[in-house]
Every structure is written in C-alpha cells, then in structure tokens.
C-alpha cells in the first residue's frame, strides 16, 4: 500500500505551520453539481483565511474528496482523510446519504464534521455529537412554505409535485402537506416523479385539471426549471413555490419566463446589503467568474464555522473543536449561525421572488 508517508507528518506538534481539513461531496456522478459548488465555496473561504495569515499563524489546507453521493464511497473518503491525511475536521458530507454513512464514524473517531447541506432530519442524530450542519432541515422549509401559502398568499387549494427518490424533496413535501392541511388548506394533488425524470406531462396534466392556486415543487433547480416550463405549457398558472434547492443563477436560464413570479424559501438573499453577503458574492464572482449558488454559500459557511471553531478552540484536538463548535455564533452568509441541541443551525430563512431574472426579497421567516 502507498500513502503511508503522510502518516509521519505530525499534526499536533507545536512547530506545525499547517493543518488540513477535509471535504466530502459528490464531484462526479449525477449529483456532481452540488459537490462542485460546495467545494468552490469551501476553497474560497480557506483562500480568504490563508490570505489573512491563516488560523493562529497556521496555513489551512483543504483536501476535498469525491464520494459520488454514495455512502460507501463517502465512507472510504472519510477513512482516507482521517487516516492518511490526518484532517482535523471535515466539511461534509454534502448529501444526506453520505452524511448518514459518515457521521457516526466522525463521532467514533472524534473528528468534527460540519455538513453544509445534508438536510435530512436525522442526520445529526444518527451521526452523533460530532456531526453538525449549517443548513436547516427539510421539514423546516415545508412548514415555512405552508405557513406562507396560507397566511400570506391566502391559498386554499394546493398541489405538490416531488421527487420520490429524494429524501430532501420528500421531506419538504410531507411537511408542507401536513401543515397546509392542518391550517385548513386542501392538497388536491400530491404527486411524485423519479430521480432523473425529464418529462412531467402526465402529472402536470392532472394538476392542471385540478385547478390549484399554489404548486409546490420541492426539488433542485436542475429539475424545477424544467417542471416550471412544462407546467406553464400545460396551462397551469398557479403560484409556484419551492425551497432552497431552487437557488442558483441557472434557475433563470433553465426556467426562463416560466419561473417569473415564482417564490421560494432559502437561506439568504444574495442581494442582501449585509457585508458578509456582499463580500462573499463579490469574492466568489472574482474567483470563479460566475454567480454563486446556495451550495457555494453553504460550503463557504460550513468552512467558516469549522475554522472559526478551530480558531476559538485554539487546538487541533477533535474534542476541543467539537466543544467550540457547540458554542458557535458566527456571522455567516446564510445568516447568524448558532447550533441547537441537535447541532443543526438555528437561523432565519428568507422568501424570495424571481423578478426579471433576478431575485427579490419578499419576506423573512424567523427561526
């Protein structure tokens, strides 16, 4: 076997001028776009930190491993990062499946893990004390959407079209349905499609016939843009609603006119005046020549949370970092971050609307 030589590098000895954090996410395969975005966000933050002299004078190195959004791969990546690269903490895993597979290992080996985007409710519970996340959970968005529909939009009849193969999509859909109904609304159609589907005409034909005032599409922008277009083509003019998965500049290119007026819950508003947000967007555009999406923002935040904790702990020891993480209070791109008892970020959400191919803030939801 190879790679043994890195094991010789001491990590906790005082003389070290460098330490390593890991990243785990899909860089290849169907979910690659999310992993790549997160990776860009993480690397951007690390670059900023290093430019400012690192953490306690130590340079930060990131090794981002590919997991193809698959548990086995993620688990191998985790072992490699911990055993061979001697990372002190990990940003990841990006997807819930991978996070569920690696979280318990993190806790077992006392390596703190901060997931930017694993929104499945049980990720931190299954993962244990060392598993954190800077995103809210799926049901939170579902509840927020239901409240917003009934309270603000005065909607009475809704349809939901979600991805059965995705825990994220299903989580939001389920939460929306139960809350919307408990508030007196009627979910006229609660329909699904499969991962990778590109044609939704069968479902949309049914929804069009049902005549609803809101249509909830809890999935990622890659799919949502398509559905929106096809929905408009099928003569559906209901208000389109969605979650954080929508957030990407690509949404407007894919969805075009069809997403005009659509609203969704997300972590932050990229046009926000706040300095962190403005700085992030500026830096990101300078570095990558494109607009950031939510996952880059979350990756950036996860890296910030992890490195801030390392800074605060003043140690590279896992337990110390974990303790510091629990006390997190960081001004991040996606809001002021603290962790609840479940080590999930407590932060506000925003509701934004697409207007002329740009986002407009329409509402804020408090934690």
């Amino acid at each position: 076997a190879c790679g043994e030589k890195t094991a010789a590098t001491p990590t906790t000895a005082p003389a070290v001028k460098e330490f390593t954090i890991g990243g785990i996410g899909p860089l290849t395969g169907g979910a690659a776009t999310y992993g790549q975005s997160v990776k860009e966000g993480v690397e951007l933050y690390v670059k900023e930190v290093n430019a400012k002299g690192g953490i306690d004078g130590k340079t930060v190195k990131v090794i981002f491993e590919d997991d193809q959004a698959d548990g086995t791969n993620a688990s191998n990546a985790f072992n490699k990062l911990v055993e061979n690269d001697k990372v002190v903490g990990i940003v990841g895993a990006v997807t819930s499946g991978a996070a569920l597979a690696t979280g318990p290992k993190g806790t077992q080996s006392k390596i703190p893990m901060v997931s930017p985007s694993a929104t499945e409710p049980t990720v931190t519970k299954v993962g244990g004390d060392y598993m954190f996340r800077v995103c809210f959970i799926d049901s939170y968005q579902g509840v927020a959407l239901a409240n917003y529909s009934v309270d603000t939009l005065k909607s009475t009849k809704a349809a939901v079209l979600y991805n059965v193969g995705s825990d994220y999509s299903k989580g939001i859909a389920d939460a929306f349905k139960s809350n919307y109904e408990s508030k007196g609304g009627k979910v006229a159609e609660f329909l699904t499609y499969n991962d990778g589907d590109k044609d939704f005409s069968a479902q949309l034909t049914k929804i069009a016939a049902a005549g609803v005032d809101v249509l909830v599409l809890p999935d990622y922008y890659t799919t949502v843009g398509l559905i929106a277009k096809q929905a408009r083509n099928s003569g559906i003019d209901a208000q389109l609603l969605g979650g954080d998965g929508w957030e990407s500049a690509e949404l407007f290119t894919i969805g075009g006119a069809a997403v005009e007026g659509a609203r969704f819950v997300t972590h932050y508003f990229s046009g926000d005046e706040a300095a962190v947000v403005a700085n992030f967007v500026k830096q990101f555009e300078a570095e990558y020549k494109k607009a950031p999406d939510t996952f880059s923002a979350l990756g950036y935040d996860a890296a910030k949370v992890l490195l801030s904790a390392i800074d605060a702990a003043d140690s590279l020891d896992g337990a110390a970092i974990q303790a510091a993480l629990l006390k997190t209070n960081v001004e991040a791109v996606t809001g002021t971050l603290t962790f609840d008892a479940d080590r999930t970020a407590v932060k506000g959400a925003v509701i934004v609307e697409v207007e002329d191919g740009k986002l407009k803030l329409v509402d804020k939801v408090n934690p």
Partner: protein
Amino acid sequence: MQFFQQLINGLSIGSIYALLALGYTMVYGIIGLINFAHGDIYMVGAMAGFYASKAYNLPFFPTLAIAMLASGALGVLIERVAYRPLRKSPRITLLISAIGVSLLLENGMRYIVGPSPKSFPELIPVHKYDLGLFQVTNIQLLTFGISILLVVLLQYIVFRTKMGKAMRAVSYDMEAAQLMGISVNKTISFTFFLGSILAGAAGIMVALSWTSIDPYMGMMPGLKAFVSAVLGGIGIIPGALIGGVFIGIAETLTKAYISTSLSDAIAFSILIIVLLVKPTGILGKVESEKV
C-alpha cells in the same frame, strides 16, 4: 378528456424513446452489442448542437445537422477505438468496454463543460394546437414525425440497399461475409454511423422538448430506450418505434391513473410480462433454431 391528453403525452415521450431505441436496435441487430454508450452519444450530440447553435446563432436544421454529424463521427470513433479490437472476443467483453466508454463520455463531458445543466435555446418557438380533445405542440408533432420518417428510412436501407444486405450478412457471420467480399469494418462503421446520427437527432429533439441538457442526461432515457428496443423486439426497426411508444404510453397512463411513485416499477413489470408472453418482444419472431 384528460385521457386523450395523457395519451398524447405518452405518445410524445414514447417517440423520444423510439428515436433513441432505433440506434440501440441498429447496433444490436448487426453486432449483437448492447451499446451502453448510446445514451451518452446522444448527450454529446445535444451538447454539440448546444454549443454550435450558441456560438453561431444557428437555427434548428443546421443545429440538428451538426448534432447528427458530431454524434455520427463520435460513434464511428468509439467503434474504431473501443469495440473493433474486441470484435473476436466474447460479446460480454464488448459490453464492459461499452460501459467504460459510457463512463468516459459522461465524466469527460462533465470535466469539460461542468456538471450543471445548460438551458437549451428555443430553436423552434413552441406552438400549441388545441384540437378539442387534447392539445399538442409543434415539437411533439415534429418528434413523432421524425421517428416515423426514420423508421421508414432505416427499413429501406436495411432491406433494400446493398449496404443493408451487407449489414445483415455481417450480423450473421463476419467471416462468411468476408468471403463474399464484404468489408466488415466498413459495414460496421456504417452501422455505428447510422445508429449514432439517430442518437444525435434524438439528442436535439429531447433538448427541444425538455429544454435542459447535462452530461448525465443520457443515463435514464438510455435505459428506457434500450428497454423499449427490447420490448419491440431488438434488432427489428419498427419494433423500436412500437416499443418506445408502448413504454411511453404505459408509463404515462400509469402515472395518470395508478401511481406516480411506482410508475417505473410498473413499466418494468409490463416489460417482463410482455417478454414472458412473447419471449422475443412484440414484433420478434420466435425462430426455433434448426437443429
């Protein structure tokens, strides 16, 4: 009248499967290879069309032509590099090589253009015709028309032309075909070219109907199209059309009236049941082997 609309929906997705299934059937029919890379060739065709039309602001037909040529050339290249050296090896070896090619195309394209989806330009403005019972778009009509046209064209090539006879001879026995003076290499290259330009056409039609393309877009439709080809009777050209339309309609009606979440399971169950009743597909002839 939702039913008729759903039927049209099914027909329309079915003709897309059919376009792809035709390519599978061509290649399978001649060299017995399940060309797993076919779905990815179609992705490359769509990508080529996308970049070409973006760069030169091309309208529909030139874009289609470029996509078809690009994927045709790619098909020939793949055959030359990854399949030809394996011609005398067991078929399953080719299958693995095809899987390698498929992974390479997906990941290579991801490396070059990035993983996120691209929005395909509206080369033909969508028109919707309301026919009372149902509505249909010009793109749906075009896709369906193109599939039918290609079926007829391919039938003609395979059964009426000299090249077609050579293809069938090669498919049965390469060595004996050589003894007739048939160039096996040329014939197989031609087959791949044909199959792959069909994939290119399918790529553009899909991009037009579904409006977004990405490096992994070939996987699922590829699988479904392959299943369609088998269902119709693999190696039989009209079978690809029938199989595609059958799967498309079955899938759509299942979603509309039975269950959206189990629709894939049901579509595959239908496939299995059809095969049990008709072991060589809908149009397949049960040819008892002469002993």
